[in-house]
């Protein structure tokens, strides 16, 4: 299948330190890929390079076969590359319904409309209802976000990302900071993501990675040291050495 998302030989260094060193990867629609790596491996830099918040020193990023290396961050979103944030970035006084509605209108290029209240736009609200219902946030639709539990805020981040109808979704630690009791709901939401969507998840929680991903990429010191199936990642000696350590023994024993 043709690649929807491609990164070719991406490089970026800060003051002589190569934080992203010749990283390449390719994803097809429907891929479920996890990007893991020890702290300081360059995961965040990689995300920022891909989203256009940082400029690479060399290399190329392609979405749907087109190069977006010289496209700014906003236009990359409009071309279908959407990210979620490691720490939720929501508008504290707005409700989940307003968040999702704003994302829908933004996607349709109608967020600049100066008249009309989207709470009374039936088309928009129907879509909001479907998305919010899917993530189990319906009861909270009209509550300000600051009154909502963190786990549910994370679900709202996913709902907003989906409202933008992405082709490629970057999930930056979708379960970070969520109490153990709520991770099940996030996992269910991830399992329900659209089939044709390419998802790249950055995550520390190895249980989640192994359940979610069909393919794992390991980044260490800015370089891809492994790209293969989850079953093989724990067996790879370089990965063991660089990252998994005792965890690999634990999970292979389990």
């Amino acid at each position, binding site marked *: 299948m043709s690649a929807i998302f491609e990164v070719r030989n991406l490089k970026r260094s800060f003051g002589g330190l190569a934080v992203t060193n010749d990283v390449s990867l390719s994803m097809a629609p429907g891929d479920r890929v996890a990007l893991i790596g020890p702290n300081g491996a360059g995961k965040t830099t990689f995300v920022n390079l891909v*989203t256009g918040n940082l400029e690479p020193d060399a290399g190329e990023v392609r979405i749907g076969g087109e190069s977006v290396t010289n496209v700014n*961050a*906003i*236009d990359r*979103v*409009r071309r279908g590359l*959407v*990210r979620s*944030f490691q720490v939720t*970035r*929501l*508008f*504290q*006084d*707005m409700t989940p*319904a*307003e968040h999702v*509605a*704003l*994302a829908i*209108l*933004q*996607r349709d290029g*109608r*967020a*600049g*409309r*100066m*008249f*009309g*209240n*989207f*709470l*009374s736009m*039936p088309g928009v*609200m*129907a879509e*909001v*209802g*479907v998305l*919010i*219902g*899917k993530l*189990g946030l*319906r*009861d909270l*639709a*009209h509550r300000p976000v600051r009154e909502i539990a963190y786990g549910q805020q994370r679900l709202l981040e996913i709902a*907003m990302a989906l409202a*933008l109808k992405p082709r490629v979704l970057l999930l930056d630690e979708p379960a970070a900071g969520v109490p153990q009791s709520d991770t099940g709901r996030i996992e269910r939401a991830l399992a329900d993501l659209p089939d044709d969507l390419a998802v790249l998840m950055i995550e520390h929680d190895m249980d989640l990675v192994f359940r979610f991903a069909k393919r794992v990429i390991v980044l260490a010191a800015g370089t891809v040291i492994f790209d293969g199936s989850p079953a093989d990642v724990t067996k790879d000696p370089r990965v063991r050495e660089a990252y998994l350590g005792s965890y690999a023994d634990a999970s292979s024993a389990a």
Partner: protein
Amino acid sequence: MTTATTNQAEAPLLSGRHGLGRDLAALAVILVLAVIGYLLFPNNLALLTRIMAIALLVLSLDLVTGYCGVATLGHAALFGSGAYAAGIAAVHFGITDPLLMVAAGIIGGALAGLVCGVVILRAHGLPQLVLSIALIHLFHEFANKASSWTGGSDGLAGIAPDPLFGIFAYDLWGRTAYVFAVVLLAIVFMFLRLVVRSPFGMLCRGIKEDPIRIQAMGGSPTIALLKMYVISGAVAGVGGALNAVSTQVVGLDSLSFTLSAESLVMLVLGGTGSLFGAVTGTIVFMLFEDLVSAANPFHWLTMVGALLIAVVLFAPKGLYGTVAEVLARRRGAGR
């Protein structure tokens, strides 16, 4: 829990927050206040008219500061540009119809908004504030130097607006000007209510809180803010034109740093991010200033300062913001 949500997912997601009733209530409040003002101060309508012109400036400031989080101490540039545009239209081009003068004010204010927006939005935080101060001084100095057009430091005099609709002449008691001001303020206020709760208004609130999040949704904060600056300029321009029509003179003070700073004080006094807060702050500040300066011409500024400190310390959301919050909490507790 899961079954409950799936069942509910069939029902349409409607909100109880429809605005029409509240809009009419807001309109009624403005008109009632206008009637009370007319009955209480029949001999001081000029002050009330000036309050309404300044209220338009403060509303305009609220759009960029309260709703978008832009820090500015130069907002009178937009108001003064509107005032000079209306005045110059009347004096140099013979456009003396009050409605056309207001239109000139809107264009002048919007253009000034565009210029100021382009400059101010390039920076954030403290540099932004400094840019705004530089801009108001530039505007002031430009008006001062272009004296053949603006009358320089003498002000632009000889503005003689036609009777409104050809019928209602601008009388010595300022009754026509007062009614004109009330109608303009009411129209602008209702217009702004529509704007701030539209998708665009919501987008701006989002930008104020987290512009990076808006970018991640594919929205451009700069374009949205610039648009708001132009709208803000048009609103301030209405205020400036109203001031020109009602006082029949435009002075350099309408383009001053002092007026810019005072309008920010009024906004903070009333409460940022709320249209009623902006109007409340203007009314309280200007009536207080009028009363106190009559009672004690030497120390009135001290008392204005004390009032401001009291509000900032004990009602940090402003007079209107604090009252609204207390009422909302009480309503919440009653449920």
